[in-house]
């Protein structure tokens, strides 16, 4: 018997999907609106996309966001890969290590962000890109760790045993057997860490020094100053980039083992 016997679940689900996607569609639609007052529709145009391309502060913010996301996601993925390899076998303290690795997921971001600000200011770390990269690396680790660990769990030990039987040393086994099998998981983890860093607002908001605004921080201060069609256009670009990257990660995670 199928659970379809519960009435209205389908109707409610479709309504929830509409609730999730209508705002996104409205936002993208308005980003193509030619009218200066962001809510009155005149006709379709790409003007605002052209304007954000030539706006120097938006370009600088986009560049900062990109550098930040590449550095933080790379560092987080390397750390997470090492951790995932260490966590394959049971050992004393594995549960505690797992809790520490996943802690950034459950802690309220605003608390971690202000605490990091307090630490950096107390020990005299210069706020700015470097501070943001360090903080982003820390909270991106679980996002990279979870897909890598999931992939690693699905890899049978017999491949590596076969490599050892054929006299491959540990390094060669890792490079020629484990890594090729693990690769989709590593890429999926990197992509999720990248998106998480790219989309982060709160941590960057507290740790950005003068002149190192990221795109979300720029959008926030722009909204505070008043809604403009430029914000619609940048927001639409950010949405589409995230959706593409997450879909990519989803399909990488599902590649045949």
């Amino acid at each position, binding site marked *: 018997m199928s659970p379809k016997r519960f009435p209205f679940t389908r109707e409610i689900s479709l309504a929830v999907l509409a609730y999730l996607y209508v705002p996104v569609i409205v936002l993208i639609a308005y980003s193509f609106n030619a009218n200066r007052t962001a809510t009155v529709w005149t006709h379709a145009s790409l003007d605002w996309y052209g304007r954000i391309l030539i706006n120097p502060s938006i370009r600088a913010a986009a560049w900062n966001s990109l550098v930040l996301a590449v550095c933080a996601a790379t560092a987080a993925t390397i750390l997470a890969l090492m951790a995932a390899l260490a966590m394959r076998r049971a050992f004393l303290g594995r549960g505690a290590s797992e809790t520490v*690795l996943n802690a950034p997921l459950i802690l309220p971001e605003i608390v971690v962000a202000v*605490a990091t600000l307090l630490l950096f200011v107390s020990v005299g770390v210069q706020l700015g890109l470097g501070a943001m990269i360090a903080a982003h690396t820390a909270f991106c680790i679980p996002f990279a760790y979870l897909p890598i660990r999931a992939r690693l769990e699905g890899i049978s030990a017999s491949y590596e045993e076969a490599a050892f039987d054929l006299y491959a040393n540990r390094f060669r*086994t890792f490079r020629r057997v484990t890594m090729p099998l693990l690769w989709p998981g590593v890429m999926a983890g990197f992509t999720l860490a990248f998106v998480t860093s790219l989309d982060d*607002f709160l941590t960057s908001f507290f740790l950005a020094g003068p002149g190192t605004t990221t795109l979300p921080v720029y959008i926030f201060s722009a909204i505070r100053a008043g809604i403009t069609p430029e914000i619609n256009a940048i927001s639409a670009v950010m*949405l589409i980039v995230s959706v593409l990257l997450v879909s990519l990660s989803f399909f990488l995670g599902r590649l045949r083992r």
Partner: protein
Amino acid sequence: MTHQSTLRRSLLLAPSLAVILVLIGLPLCLMGWISFLQKGGSAGVDWNSAPSAANYVRLVWEEDFDGTMILNTSYLVIFLRSVAQAAVTMLLSLLLGLPVALWIASLSRTGRDIMLLLITIPFWTNLLVRNYAWLIILREDGWVAQAVNALSPFGPVQLLYNDVAVAIGLTYSFLPFMILPLYTVFEKFHWRLLDAAHDLGATRARALRRVVLPIATPGIVAGCLLVFIPCLGAFVTPALLGGGKTLMLGNIIQMQFGASRNWPFGAALSVVLLAVMLIVMTGMALWRNRRTA
């Protein structure tokens, strides 16, 4: 099988643990200490001040001109509003998320994959941008507000900058956190149990209450925690959709680090937020253990 020495394992594991402990654990400990100090100096903290609980006292009592302590409810109100908003969001998410999770679990393999991807995508897109989209939809001169006002029997209605707008935005932000854990429970559910309940004469409502809900309890607890905790510390949604009138804990924490520049008091507020979170998590865990025992 590959033998993994303790040394090799430690070397692999140490860097990630060190990064998280130094960049997240250590700052939280430092914050706890600073919450007992006084404000001052250029960095916002007077390191030489004698530790006292003054910042915590300030949450509830205020010193009058002549030195008597009088009750100050403004922080209490914000605190209670945050808890209420988080609780309302949690319940709304549960009401919407339960049928969705049940429906996804009833689909074919491909259907499930597509629906899960559709539910997950909003979670990964920018929180700020998603709340901004609601700002556009609910704004005063938008077509939704115009339609509502045309139909409203009570005269013009303000859709933005109130608790309802914040609840809509928070539910929108965190609904996927409720659906996913519920789905993982229903995915493994033996639907034959429902047939058994039906054969034994249970109505659908009774089967839902006596069979589905008890089995779904771990998913419900996980989902409620995953929604409640980020809601309690929400900053973006109340800042955009609450418009400065309906502040939550996250906003007053930010204000202490911004305009007010009272870092020790901000640290105390953050400690309170963490403490509430821990109490809720422990309470939920105890409740679940009692249910499953």
